[in-house]
């Protein structure tokens, strides 16, 4: 399939799922009523539902999915490994730790933005720590090792907080938050995440040529005029901004960043540069679909988005591994 056609197809899919996401929800609104409320602002309750609940949710779905897909494709391209995922550099677990601390200390209850802001602070601290550990130059291996160390430490601290939590309700709240969800989000969340995600995407989009060159290995890429230290810095900053903001507004949603690039790779001729845009669109589509499914499967119980993506993602990934093995690659 031609690359341009693929991007148009994926964009169409995202647009379709975005509309579907706007039309599905517990408030029983008719199709015409929904559209009219969204566009013209007529009908009090419907306007509120459409503009304050469903629209931010759908927008966050697109933003979060695109960030996850794009970051996943960039990480896999940089590490030249189809098993890499955005969480590998420790940003998501550190952002989660920040959010957990906000919940535990009661800051999140006192001040609505405390949770996402603490999560972002966690992401920033983890990136500084990561760059300090991995050093200014050096191979991708040092970056993975530093990422695993940061990730493990943040995970341990999160467990410690849960462990020492005196209040079982707070512990339950933390656990549920960590499962990842887009329900009950508002435009505040959209405006908070948007600048970070946009900056992250802008950074990652510049990496296409460098990631293509890395197909030949680090030495060859460097001799082709690619600055590896700059590429790594841009990659870490871009992934951290995208993923940190994602965790801040939605909790941990896994598997999208791992599965989407893997799924789309054969359709872009395996070129890591082209995979970036395709994965961003594919991630948005998959996340919107998952968020719609969450609302359709259990309308009255709050099934968490992160649970669903893992439930669907893991078998899908196993199938892909099986297929890869059969092809003898």
């Amino acid at each position, binding site marked *: 399939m031609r690359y341009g056609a693929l991007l148009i197809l994926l964009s169409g899919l995202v647009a379709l799922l975005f509309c579907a996401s706007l039309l599905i929800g517990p408030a029983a609104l008719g199709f015409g009523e929904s559209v009219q409320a969204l566009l013209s602002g007529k009908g009090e309750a419907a306007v509120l539902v459409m503009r304050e609940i469903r629209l931010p949710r759908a927008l966050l779905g697109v933003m979060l999915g695109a960030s996850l897909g794009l970051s996943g494709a960039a990480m896999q391209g940089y590490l030249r490994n189809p098993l890499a995922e955005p969480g590998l550099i420790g940003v998501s677990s550190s952002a989660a730790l920040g959010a957990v601390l906000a919940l535990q200390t009661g800051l999140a209850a006192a001040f609505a933005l405390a949770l996402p802001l603490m999560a972002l602070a966690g992401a920033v601290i983890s990136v500084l720590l990561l760059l300090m550990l991995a050093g200014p130059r050096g191979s991708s291996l040092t970056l993975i090792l530093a990422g695993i160390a940061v990730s493990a430490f943040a995970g341990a601290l999160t467990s410690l907080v849960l462990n020492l939590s005196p209040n079982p309700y707070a512990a339950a709240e933390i656990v549920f938050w960590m499962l990842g969800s887009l329900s009950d989000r508002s435009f505040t969340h959209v405006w908070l995440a948007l600048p970070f995600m946009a900056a992250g995407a802008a950074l990652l989009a510049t990496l296409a040529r460098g990631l293509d060159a890395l197909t030949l*290995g680090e030495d060859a890429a460097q001799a082709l005029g690619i600055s590896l230290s700059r590429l790594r810095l841009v990659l870490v900053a871009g992934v951290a901004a995208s993923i940190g903001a994602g965790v801040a507004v939605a909790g941990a949603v896994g598997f999208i960043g791992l599965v989407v690039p893997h799924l789309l790779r054969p359709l872009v001729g395996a070129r890591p540069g082209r995979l970036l845009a395709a994965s961003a669109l594919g991630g948005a589509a998959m996340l919107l679909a998952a968020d719609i499914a969450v609302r359709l499967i259990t309308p009255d119980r709050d099934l968490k988005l992160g649970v669903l993506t893992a439930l669907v993602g893991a078998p899908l990934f196993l199938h892909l591994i099986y297929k890869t093995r059969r092809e003898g690659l």
Partner: protein
Amino acid sequence: MTDLLTLSDLTVRRGDCPVVDHVSLTVRGGEFVGLIGPNGAGKTTLMRGALGLLPATGHSSLAALPARDRARAAAWLPQMREIAWPVDVETVVALGRTPHIGARGLSDADRAEVDKALHWLDLDAFRHRTATQLSGGEQARVLIARTLAQGAPLVLADEPIAGLDPAHQIATMQVFRDLADQGRAVIASLHDLGLAARLCTRLVLLGQGRVVAEGAPRDVLTEANLREVFHLRAHYADTPDGPVFQPLEVIR
């Protein structure tokens, strides 16, 4: 002919130990320089140091250039043959154009260079095959084509003919020689001294990081040099078919 690479007192250390020790070398257009020496003599390190891929002291005219200019001045074929993703052969070879392409992607001139490189390495039939599904030797030729597509006046290649069948070894060496005859230059580390003697215009013999000898093949592959550096006894003869070199036995 112009100087394409000048090294003066280039030294690369690993810890305290100098792996490349005060090497000075000038390579001009029209030369096919064979870099020979036993394992661990510093051939790879010398080339990587010259390219600025390793921190080095002394001077290298290439390492002094900004990254993009250097990529246009010299192409590098690493020993490690890596093709990380199942992309097609044409895509791999087109990566050689990375230092030349602007925001619009490959131009017609870029595509012409890619076609020429594919043809040189006898890869026309492989153009749309998936590179990772080819045999090791075929992948090696794809990567050599990628290096040539870069269009740089100087090519540095680390054991370019290792793992190729005999016909493709000779053909590849001949491609390098043709490049030199066209006024470009090639520096290649080689273990096949017979082919080096036949096709290189100059040999540089490295031993323990130092240049032990350099010059025309017959002046470098002397009995004394072979004994001291390679611990080998060999047969060397100038025949109507050109120089013939055959290692005979190991001297302990």
